[in-house]
């Protein structure tokens, strides 16, 4: 697909997103659109990490850090609610850098475990400390102040559509930043790192530094969504930001197709946000049925829906995991021509880092 066609589709989708809340009177449908877009954006942040070879399961935690920062500012300070947007991003980025400096010291595999631990710790911290209102959570977060348009008119944030437009604006901004990053030399270095970490080192790419950058940027991006979620839901509870959410984020990306940094998460999130709603009919069994469906889908198409449709290959998740544990310069698969058959190769594995 040429880039012109892609832009045309993107603009069409945007126009559709702008028009839909006006055409549909159901607040429930608009709510589903909000959830879909929010989930998709978080999955995009996940794919960003994946491109640089990071399997980051802590994103829901940073989403929570953004949301809680906003909640605290809105309920406990006199600062304008809007100020919570940049502050949330700064706090999340700062925390991610501190966490990243520690977690990224180890191997890419140990990072996965570390990020999972972070995903568990963040909601525990929110729940345990009275400072964050414990498990009762933060309630009564006011929406952001109206934006005056002159002559008495103003954009007010109250209805579902108004929140959808707020989210849409934030999402478009985040996506444009992502796109610009992917096209910059940093994006190229990330891609190189993700495709082959060892080869990347032989072109002088510092994995530690570039992965720290991707970790910080993706954490900052989900903090934007944390801000949105706080002002939209007006109530924050620790359990919303638990590790399961992080795993869901990963599933949105995988289902859509991890080779597609924007379209994949949008499609995956749409399916996985709407599917459980559609399955409400089966009542309490909904999570079981959803889970089973996801397993079937992922087994049948590890490249995701878009990967299956387009035939564009990226590493699927299995390959990705294998690549993380590969020794320097080893072949992707097969190709054992004149490999050094001795203990030295295996022993190398043990001693690397």
């Amino acid at each position: 697909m040429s880039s012109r066609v892609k832009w045309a589709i993107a603009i069409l989708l945007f126009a559709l997103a702008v028009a839909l809340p006006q055409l549909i009177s159901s607040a429930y449908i608009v709510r589903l659109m909000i959830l879909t877009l929010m989930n998709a954006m978080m999955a995009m942040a996940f794919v960003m990490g994946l491109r640089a070879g990071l399997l980051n399961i802590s994103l829901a935690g940073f989403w929570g850090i953004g949301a809680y920062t906003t909640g605290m500012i809105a309920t406990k300070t006199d600062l304008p609610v809007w100020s919570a947007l940049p502050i949330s991003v700064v706090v999340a980025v700062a925390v991610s850098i501190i966490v990243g400096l520690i977690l990224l010291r180890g191997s890419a595999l140990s990072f996965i475990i570390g990020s999972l631990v972070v995903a568990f710790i963040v909601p525990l911290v929110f729940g345990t400390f009275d400072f964050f209102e414990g498990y009762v959570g933060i309630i009564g977060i006011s929406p952001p102040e109206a934006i005056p348009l002159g002559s008495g008119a103003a954009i007010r944030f109250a209805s579902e559509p108004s929140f959808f437009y707020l989210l849409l604006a934030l999402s478009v901004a985040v996506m444009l930043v992502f796109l610009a990053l992917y096209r910059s030399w940093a994006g190229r270095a990330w891609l190189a790192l993700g495709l082959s970490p060892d080869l990347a080192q032989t072109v002088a790419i510092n994995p530690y530094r570039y992965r720290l950058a991707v970790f910080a940027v993706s954490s900052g991006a989900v903090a934007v969504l944390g801000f949105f979620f706080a002002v939209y839901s007006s109530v924050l509870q620790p359990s919303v930001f638990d590790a399961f959410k992080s795993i869901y984020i990963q599933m949105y990306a995988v289902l859509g197709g991890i080779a597609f940094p924007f379209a994949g998460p949008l499609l995956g999130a749409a399916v996985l946000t709407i599917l459980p709603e559609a399955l409400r009919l089966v009542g309490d069994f909904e999570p079981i049925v959803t889970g089973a469906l996801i397993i079937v889908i992922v087994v049948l198409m590890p490249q995701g829906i878009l990967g299956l449709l387009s035939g564009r290959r990226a590493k699927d998740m299995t390959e990705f995991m294998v690549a993380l544990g590969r020794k320097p310069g080893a072949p992707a698969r097969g190709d054992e021509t004149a490999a050094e058959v001795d203990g030295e190769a295996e022993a190398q594995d043990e001693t690397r880092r």
Partner: protein
Amino acid sequence: MSTIFEAQGLTKSFGGLTAVNDLSFSVEESEILGLIGPNGAGKSTVFSMMSGFVRPTSGELVFEGRSIVGMPAYAVTGLGIGRVFQHSVSFNNLSVTENVVVGFLKERRAHILGSIARTRKARMEERAFRERADEIIDMIGLGSVKDELPVNLPHGHQRLLSVATALATGPRLLLLDEPVTGMNPSETKHMVGLIRRIRDDGITVVLVEHHMKVVVDLCDRVVVLNYGRKIAEGTPRVVVDDPVVCEAYLGKRAFDAA
């Protein structure tokens, strides 16, 4: 000729296994040095230590008067040691040109914000990198497949691409791990010519290779390893005729081939 790289008392043990044992050798500027030995002799481990992927248990590695022991691999590349892996490894989702452009990353001057905003300076730098990448690609003979993905190229071309990427990092010492393994005779000839050319451009080359004819043709000097120790050193002809080397390593067949 001055010494560009030196290994002194280099030792690497993995648990109880000593892969490289008290190895010393030096690499002179603008020479092609062959590192040979039977399977398991420790050649790959030496390469991994020279490029910063594996830290020696003991010993010293000096590149242009500077110790590189303990430096991570990316920093070693940054200093000017290029490495080409034994197997065809390329960035598979990037085109041939892009694969080489990645190699110029360490030279970039444009700030990340400039690159994001696509300022004039950033775009000019990008264009300059692309032009230089294309020059390298033409030089190694991949000009006709610039926009292909590496996976669509034959094995020989993939190996050439790995060399091109390494050249883009501007190395002064290039480590080639089995550059002609798995190649047909015409690909081999092309690669041999390329390696000579690289040396003539002033880049010192160290290679590990099993193909004895290539070693004899190409190398100015060889160092022979067996069980992690150096058992011989000298010009290829002399080393190949050395009875110790024949007995320990070459065997009758390879000896005849040479």
